[in-house]
């Protein structure tokens, strides 16, 4: 789960990670009030969406007067912001963050995530503040300093020194930086974060470090023990069908093709998408119905897949294990009664009691259900069906 910049900064402030002062605003009036409350004579109006690259897309503007705050907010609120991370359809901006202007002397990058190979968190810093870290890693990897932090010892001074010296900070600034990094480590660990990115981290004219931007993602499996963070969830930032699927215990990801997929198990779901492509088709989605594949979940699966108007055929690929195939076959028949399915459905049931299952489907004699013998056979048939063959 991801949160907005303003929410991440609220968490930062709680832990003593310094940020510029700011207020979130949902309307032009609120933005003007926020700017007045913050005071000063320079503000930044920042679109709040779950994607990076907002500045380049016109979602971050500097205001030198209250009138400019008003004008920029009018332009940004309600705009569809397109960045390299939103995809071509962009994202609707529904709130802005009004922040006091900062005196930027230099810009850095500071981030934290799980190093899967080391099986512990890694903190990364770079002098290339403001640049995409992936790009820096690809082009000038020597400009990134990394340090793994073993959680059993926690954040130690030497972790901070490695980063600070790596960034080339002068001796008198090392202490301030270490304090900043230590607080960030606490934010990460205490909240079961999956990722934190501060890009840029700035040094001000008076030698302070400030998180000018803040991006945070969390481990979904740990949200149960962080109700305060779960409350920050902004469902309008997530794909509505994916949210709906999750409510029914289904795992769904929308793709661009026209062959719908309903599969049990995540690995087999991905493999099913792959084989559709291999046979010359394009998968319309990833959908894992889980182990059960009962009539209700299958019916809901059909509904979710068919919400996508591009879908021309559906491939139901279930490998029956402990859940026997004959039961799944009956479930599919039940599901077609519960929801209207108006495209060809290729069904491949293999594993325990596969023969009985095929018999059940054949005897049901439903026009748009096509049975398949194997994974490859099913993929071929569904790709042909989607092409209208």
């Amino acid at each position, binding site marked *: 789960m991801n949160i907005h910049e303003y929410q991440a900064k609220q968490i930062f402030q709680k832990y003593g990670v310094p940020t510029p002062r700011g207020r979130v605003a949902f309307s032009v009036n609120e933005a003007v009030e926020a700017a007045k409350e913050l005071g000063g004579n320079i503000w930044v109006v920042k679109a709040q969406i779950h994607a990076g690259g907002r500045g380049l897309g016109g979602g971050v503007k500097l205001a030198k007067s209250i009138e400019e705050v008003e004008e920029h907010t009018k332009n940004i609120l309600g705009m569809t912001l397109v960045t390299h*991370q939103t995809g071509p359809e962009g994202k609707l901006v529904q709130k802005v963050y009004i922040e006091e202007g900062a005196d930027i002397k230099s810009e850095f990058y500071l981030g934290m995530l*799980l190093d*899967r*190979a080391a*099986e*512990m968190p890694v903190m990364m810093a770079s002098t290339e503040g403001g640049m995409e*870290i*992936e790009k820096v*890693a*690809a082009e000038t990897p020597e400009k990134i300093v990394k340090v793994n932090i073993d*959680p*059993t010892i926690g954040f130690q001074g030497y972790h901070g020194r490695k980063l600070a010296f790596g960034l080339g900070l002068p001796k008198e600034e090392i202490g301030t930086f270490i304090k900043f990094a230590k607080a960030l480590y606490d934010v990460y*660990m205490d909240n*079961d974060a*999956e990722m934190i990115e501060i890009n840029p981290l700035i040094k001000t004219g008076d030698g302070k470090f400030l998180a000018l931007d803040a991006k945070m993602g969390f*481990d*979904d*499996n*740990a949200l*149960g*023990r962080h109700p305060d963070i779960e409350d920050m969830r902004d469902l309008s930032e997530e794909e509505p069908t994916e949210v709906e699927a999750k409510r029914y215990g289904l*795992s769904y*990801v929308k*793709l661009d093709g026209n062959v719908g997929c309903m*599969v*049990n*198990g*995540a*690995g*087999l*779901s*991905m*493999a*099913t*998408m*792959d*084989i*559709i*492509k*291999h046979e010359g088709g394009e*998968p319309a989605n*990833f959908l*894992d119905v889980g*182990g059960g594949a009962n009539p209700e979940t299958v019916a809901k699966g059909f509904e979710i897949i068919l919400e996508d108007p591009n879908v021309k055929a559906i491939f139901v690929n279930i*490998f*029956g*294990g*402990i859940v026997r195939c004959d039961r799944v076959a009956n479930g599919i028949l039940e599901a077609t009664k519960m929801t209207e399915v108006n495209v060809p459905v290729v069904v491949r049931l*293999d*594993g*325990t009691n596969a023969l009985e299952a095929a018999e059940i489907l054949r005897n049901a004699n439903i026009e748009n259900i096509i049975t398949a013998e*194997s*994974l*490859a056979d099913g*993929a071929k048939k569904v790709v042909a069906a989607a092409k209208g063959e």
Partner: protein
Amino acid sequence: MSILVNKDSKVIVQGFTGKEGTFHASQCIDYGTQIVGGVTPGKGGQEHLGKPVFNTVEEAVNSTGATVSMIFVPPAFVADAVMEAADAGIELAVIITEGAPVKDMMYAKMYATKKGMKTIGPNCPGIITAEECKIGIMPGNIFKKGNVGLISKSGTLTYEASHQVVQEGFGITTAVGIGGDPIIGLSYKQLLPMFEADPETEAIVMIGEIGGDLEIQAAEFIKENISKPVVAFIAGQTAPKGKRMGHAGAIISGGSGTAAEKMEALEKAGVKVVVSPADIGKAVKEVLSK
């Protein structure tokens, strides 16, 4: 022969009396697995499925001599259960539970490693030595005895692969579902040498997926250390970047962890990589007929 577990392995179940634990433990008993007892705090002294229930893993180990634990406790209690098993001298913990927080697994695995306990999973189907011992939730009947070792991040895709291998006239020595979480126990790199050393295993199938770099590490390892033929399939060739595909660890982040880079690395290491998941069985036949 086989790897890690066989008909003599003594197994306890943590989370024995819960719904999942009960159902799957009884399936394991039917398969022939020596389930010697279980642990459910507060229910010590009772009997369940004809086996003794203990309050602690330590008691269970002391009175049954179990060396393996199958863990079904709810996600929030997984780390506790794993560490308790490690402390009690269990040698192998098979963690079936899905949804354990990453931070918990980070601590649990570090402690298990310190105590010399091997772990499999979490979020996995478990391990099965065909026709001897099933510790997990997989359908036992799919795994006929044979000469192919199987290592997989995915559950149903493991069944699919075994099914194809059996259809081609071969069978399985041991199949290990390693799980699809960001932090897992035994992985390709630790399991490959076990299969290499197992005289009955003549070929190895490895099934990977997008995310992380375990398959890349495996490729480097295979190149230097594995002489038996290896067949591989990597799921998620068509997965979009930055989207989590069901498994917590199945995500292409920052452009790395793609199926393409894993397939390329494995191919370079001399592995027979199949593009279509329907060709796993055929590829096994091909490498075994050479």
